[in-house]
Structure formats: C-alpha cells, structure tokens
C-alpha cells in the first residue's frame, strides 16, 4: 500500500499528563493508519485513552511525542492559525452532545465550517440540500435546535461534519446521547455516507451495536492497541461481526482470567 493511499497515519503517538511522580501515560506509543473510504471504529474501556487519541487527531490536544500525518502532512508541525484552518475544513467532527449552536438555525449550523473559513453560504446551498435530503432533515433546516428531536440534532451535526467534504470525519460516541431507535437511524445514515459517498470515518464508541457498522475496529487498552478486528464483508453479516466484537470486549475486560 502506498503512502498516498493512507489518509491518516498515526505514528508512535504518546501523551503523558502531569510530571514527575504524578505522571500518567494516556497514550503509550500508538501506531495505526486509516485508508480512504474506511469506517474505522475505536473501542476500549473508560480511561483507555480513546478520547485523548481522538483529541490529538482533532488537533485540539498536542501529543507529547509522535506524529500524526493527515494526507501526508504532519499536522503538528504547523502553527495555531494553520491548525484552525485544518479544523472543520479537512476534519469533520461529530460530538456525543451534538454541540449545535442553539441560537443558530439548522441551516446556519451546517454552514458554519464553511463560513468560518470565509466561504459564501450561497455556494453551499446545493450541497446542503443534497445532504439534508440524504439525512432526512430538510424540514428542520430553518428551525432552531430547541425545536428538533435528539436524532434530528445529531443528523444536523452529521451534515455539519460532512459539509466541507473533509478528508476524515471524527465521531466521538455519536450515539451516546440517542435512544436505540435514533442510534440505529444515525448509524445507518453514517454507513450510507461511508459506502455511497466514500466518506472516511473514525468513530470512538462504547456501543458494540454502533461498532458493528464499522469495517475495522481497533481495541485499545491502557493507552496501547490491544486487538484489531476486520469485518469480512461481504461474507460476514453484521450480526456475526457484532458477536465477534462482543467476544473481544469480554477479553478486553480481562476475560475469564481476571475473574477472581
């Protein structure tokens, strides 16, 4: 596989908090790649370093050492202004709590990553339309978040993450604040944009159900990669993959070895 085919390369990422005796290692030299059109899941127990990893890739947290290459460029070799340019444009975000600005309408929220970077809202009208239709949020485009359901809010957030055609979408527990029905709808939509539009998605999740939509899953434990699962599509059904995930999760929890 050529380097140019890798959208994201994470090389020997380390992150330590504190110093001296109080030092804790959140990430202990993690290395992996993400290729285009991939739907990568990251799973792990609380405190395993998932969020730290995501924040590093999101450029809102500096790793202590190591490199993160996006499209072949080391993102931390640039200054703050450049990083600001990166955010929203090259990277799309999906948060657990949606993080929609509640005094902006749905449409205004979706446009944000573009207008922040100086684009005319007029130009993206067609793109908004397409995304809104695909995500079934046309009726709420001119509503404020307080007038939307949780599922609608998260789908508006998906549209916001996708509007700038980012190289990669980072999703942090996107189903965390949704009920199972809305979670299912959301995952189907994400899977759709991954498969049909070729969006690359990196999703951190606790939820084995949500993870079963991924094409590959990295399990991390104590700041390092512990296991990797690939879905053998199209031979493997989603529910078979789900079962395999559950098995690894049980192992991750220590398996039967840890039972006292």
């Amino acid at each position, binding site marked *: 596989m050529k380097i140019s085919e890798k959208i994201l390369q994470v090389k020997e990422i380390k992150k330590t908090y504190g110093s001296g005796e109080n030092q804790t290692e959140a990430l202990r030299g993690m290395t992996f790649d993400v290729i285009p059109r991939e739907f990568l899941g990251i799973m792990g127990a609380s405190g395993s370093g998932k969020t730290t990893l995501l924040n590093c890739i999101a450029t*809102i*947290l500096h790793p202590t050492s190591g490199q993160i290459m996006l499209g072949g460029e080391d993102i931390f070799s640039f200054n703050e202004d450049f*990083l600001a340019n990166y955010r929203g444009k090259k990277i799309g975000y999906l948060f657990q709590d949606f993080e929609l600005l509640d*005094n*902006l309408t749905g449409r205004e929220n979706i446009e944000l990553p573009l*207008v922040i970077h*100086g684009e005319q809202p007029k130009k993206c009208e067609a793109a908004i339309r397409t995304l809104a239709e695909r995500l079934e949020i046309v009726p709420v485009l001119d509503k404020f978040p*307080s007038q939307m359901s949780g599922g609608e809010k998260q789908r508006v957030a998906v549209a916001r993450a996708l509007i700038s055609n980012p190289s990669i979408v980072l999703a942090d527990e996107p189903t965390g604040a949704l009920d199972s029905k809305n979670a299912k709808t959301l995952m189907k939509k994400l899977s759709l944009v991954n498969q049909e539009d070729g969006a690359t998605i990196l999703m951190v999740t606790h939820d084995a159900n949500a993870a079963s939509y991924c094409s590959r899953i990295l399990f991390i434990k104590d700041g390092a990669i512990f296991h990797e699962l690939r879905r053998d599509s199209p031979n493997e059904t989603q529910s078979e993959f789900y079962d395999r995930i559950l098995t690894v999760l049980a192992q991750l929890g220590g398996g039967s070895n840890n039972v006292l």
Partner: protein
Amino acid sequence: MFFNQIRRNSLRSRKENSLFFGSLIIAIVVFYVFLSLESQDVIIFLKTMESDAIRKLLVLIPIVYAVSLFFVFFLVYFANKYQLQRRSHEFGLYQTLGMKRRRIFSMLMGETVWNSLIALLIGIPVALFLTELISLATANLVGLGIIGHHFRVSWTGLIGTVGGFFAVQLIAMFLLSFIMSLKEPIDLLRDETEGTQLLASKKSGWIQLILGVILLLIAYAMGLFLLKTLSFLYIFAVIGILVTGIAGTLLLFRGIATFIGYRVRKNDRKSTGLATFTGRQLQENVLHQSAFLGIGSLLILLAIICLAYGVSTIFTRGDDGERTVDISLQGERQEIETVLTSKEIAPYIYAYYPMNLDTMDWEIVENGQGYSWGTLIEAIEDLPYSATKENLLNNLLGYSPFLFPLSSYNALLASMDQPEIILEPGELVLYNSDMFSQFRDDLEKALQSNPVIELDGQTYSLASEIRTQNLVADRFISIIFGLVVPDELYAELVSDQEPFCWNVALDPDFIEDQGLMHALMQVGGLLNETGLTYESYLSGIGRQLFYIVAGSYVSLYLGLMFLIIANTVLGLKFLMQQRSTRHRYETLLVLGAKKEALYSSAKTQVWVYFALVISVAIVNGIFGIASLLNSFLRLGDAVSDEMFILLSAIAVVVFLVTELGYIWLIRSESKREIRRMSSLNRG
C-alpha cells in the same frame, strides 16, 4: 479549614473577576463620597453663612442615600450573580459530595463578609482620597481654593458607608443563595443557564418596534409642548411623559431584537465568517434582556440629564463678576473711622471710602424737569428686534437711574488699583451691573450713536464705555442702570449727602497670605466686637455657592452614580451571557474558527450592545434636555441657550469618554474569557 476555604474562595473571586470586585469598590466610594458631603470644605463654609438653606440640603442626603442604596443593591446583586454563575459547577459539586446547603450558604455569607472587608479596606482610602480631591476641586472651581484646607474624615459618612454596604451585600447574597438553593444539584453541575432560543413571532416584534417609536415620539412631543403651555396640567403631563417614555423605550428594545433577527436572515446568504453567529448572539442578548436593556438605557438617560444639568449649573451660577468691595459698613463717619484706624484693624485695611448712591430727589422729578433717557431710547429702538431689546426698553422707561458721585466711583477704582474716570464737561458715564449683563450688548451698540440724555433740564452726553463694577460688598444689591455724575451735579440733584455705606478693601498682601475667606472671616470677627453693622463679600459668595452646591453637586453625583451603575450592570449582564454560552465558542474553535475571529465577534457584540443602549439614551436625552430648557429649567439671564448647549455638550463628551472606558473594559474582560477557553492544551 472552613475559614481558609472562605479566604481562598474570595481571593479567587477577586482575581478571576476584577469587574466584580471593582464594582464593589465603586459602590463603597459612591456611598462615602455622598455621605461625607457634610464635611466638604464648601459645605462647612456655607454652614457659617447660609445655615438654614444648608440644613435643608442636608435633610436631602438621607433621601438620596436611600435611593443610592436601592441602585447600588442592583449593582451588587448583578456582580454577585455573575460571580455565582461562574461558580455554579463548583456548588453543584459540593452538593454532590454531600455538603449541606446550610453549609454552602454560610460559606457564601462568610465569603461575602470577607470580600466586603477587603473591598472596604481598599475602597475607604480611595473614597477618602477622592472626597478630598472633590472637596478641593469644588472649592477651587467656585473660587474657594483660598480656604485653608484641612483633611477631614466624616465619621457619620463612614458608618453609613460601612453599614449600607454590608447590608446591601448581605441582602443581595442572601437572595442569590436562596434562588440557588431552589436548583437541583444537577442543574448547577451542568453550568449552563442560557435559555433556548426564544422565537418571538416576527409580526409582534415589528408591532412592538413601531409602537415603541410612536410612544417615544408622543413622549417627546408632550415634553416639548405640553410642559411649556399647560402649566395647570403639569402633573398629568409629567406622568404622561414618564409612562409613554418608559413604555416606548422598553417596547423599542423588544422590537430591536426582531429587527436584528431580520438583518441576520437577510444577510445570511452573503455573510461569511462569524457574522451570522454574531448577529444571532446579539439578537438573543437583546431579546432575552430587552427589559434590562431598556432600564439600562433609561438609567443612562437619567445620567445624561443629571450631568448636563449639573455641569451647566456650575457655570451659569459661577459667573458673578470680579470682587470689588470686601466689606461695606454702615454707620456714622466718625464711628467708622475710629474703628478702621484702630490698631487692631488698621493693619488689614488697604483703603476705605464713603460710597454715595441715590436716586434723584423726588421734588426735582415732580417739577417735570426730572430726567429723560433722551435719544438713548431712540438709539435702542433702532436696533434690530429682539426679546432682550424689548425688555431693555421696558426697564429703561420705568426706571429712575441711580446716581453716583464721581469721587465715590473713583475711590472704588483706586481701591482696586484701576485708573480713575475723567469726565469731559457735560459728559456722564452709564452704569449697568454685571447681574444684568444681558443688556450690555444692546447698550454698547446704542452708545455708538452718541445719544444724549436729560437731567433736570440739562442735556448730557454719555461716554462710550459702560461701567459695571459692584458698588457694595453684598452682591444682592445690584443696580440695573445708573449714572456716574460729577460731584457738583450729585450735590444738586440729591439732597441727602449721607453715604449709603462705607466700603473697605482689605490689604492684598494680607489676603494673599491668609486666603480671602480667612482674611474676611478674621476681619469680620474683629468688626463683630465693635458692634458695627456690616455686609461682607462672604455672604454674597455664600449665596452664590449655595446655588452651585445645591444645584450641581447633587445632580452631578446622581448623574455619575446612574452612569456607573447602568454601565457596570449592563457590562456584567453581557459577560454573563457570554459566560453561559461559552460552549458555543468552544464548538466554534473546534470547527476551525480562529481565536482572532472569536475576539472580533465578541468585540462587535460588545460594541453593538452598548451602542444600542447608549444611542437610544442619547436620543431620549436630547429631547429630555430640550423639554427641560422649555420648562422647568430657568437659566440665569446672563446665560444664552447656546452656552447651555455648549456646556451640555461638554457633559456629553465626559459621558462618551466614560462609556468608551466601559466598553474597553468589558471588551478586554470578554477577550480574557475567550482566551481562557481557547488554550490548545486543554487536556
């Protein structure tokens, strides 16, 4: 441990929120400055002179104090509310960890007391310094710089300040703690208090905007016309103006939110960057707080009017011409000369002379030969029409002129080291006191045509220069029109040759050494022992001063207080909104907004927010002042409307500078808040 926690928490409050702590100090200074009025140089001096009037003024103090307490309460309330909002997460945590509400309450009260003590420790010295400064400045401004100044502490003022401040702080904190105790711990933990986007219907928004403007226009019209004409309906007119004005302003602000929303929608398609976000933030700010902005704007309006009125009072009343006579004595020549040449008093005397002044004898007027203003009247009639001119003519025609012998007038000039008047044969000099200087221009123009007047059948010409010096020490005795005549003519026309009084000029070196006030008081004391009746320049100043102090001091004080309170509270309110929507800024950062873009969005928000409030207040203020000029406010005749407007403009500049200062302060505070949330390594 408990006390340490209180100390640490309050230290953090002071560090994190300088505006909060600054407002507390301002509250203290505001209280003390006003309550210490009694020990100001000017007032102490006036007490010796106009004790009755001062007593009445001092009765006003508790009333204004109560009003101040009320407003300062709001200031303290909002400052504390902002501070508690910032710490709401902390309180939620305490409760989650099992701290009893009672204990949180006593911790907050403890912090309040501790913070108040520190604020007092800083505020009182500042207040003392400021009162000294004000005392000196007022004294200088009104020409009292000459009083020997002593540092004074007003103990009643101090007690009132400390008591009032603690009361206001504790009541505000009590209320806030009570409100907080009604919330669930989880709500406190969430640390988010902003309401959801209110969607006022567009139609009602526009109606409110239009209705607000109409009501304001009605209020302006009533102010300009009703107050002037319908004097018997005054009270109704005033109530009408207040109701329409206040309702209009409040409605206007509600409507403005809709207008901002409309602008955002309209520009939505072409604006880039954070323009939409900025607009929506503003819309939310104005809509959620329209009543608040309205009240803030009305407070600033009050401040504008008070400042304009106060400043103009200082200048209009302060101009009372030069000092000519220090003391005027009444009594027999011999008696007076004995006293003035006695060894106790003589060293202080520079000059003394009899001042003769009187009107023409009644018999001469009766003869029909009396007096006539002759061609002076015609010369004045030829001048272009003006209200002053008509007034001048009416006064001249009904007025028998006072006459002064040349020797008296020259003695007055000599005592001031000014050149004497030399009269040409058949020439008289026209006199017009400074108190009536509004006629000066017309008279000078009329004199250019060399008019002649008649006295007892004789024709005299008038010198081109008009004399204006005060003839006696008491400023209340002033003469509109008079004539300086040769001594022989005075003897012919006035049979009573007894001087009106004996004027005394004190030794200039002595005055310079002691200060005018002390010099006058010292000699006055000596004269009191002799039993002579006398008038001193002091009482004249006293009366003038009283008007200045009563008129300007109180209104300037109230003006500044309204200004400070309105701005601080508005600023705090803005910061509170920014605080409660901080996660929006965080989201924007993650979406790639640059810090500078956020700063400039916040900057625009601060500017528009304040500009809205201030511009409405200024428009209201212009009409308010115009209405005042038309009605209640009677300017000294010597002051033209232009002068008043100029002085008001000075007040407006002071006002704008204060506003800019506040905007700058709020901007930097808001910037700091954003910087705090935008540090890259948030962990």
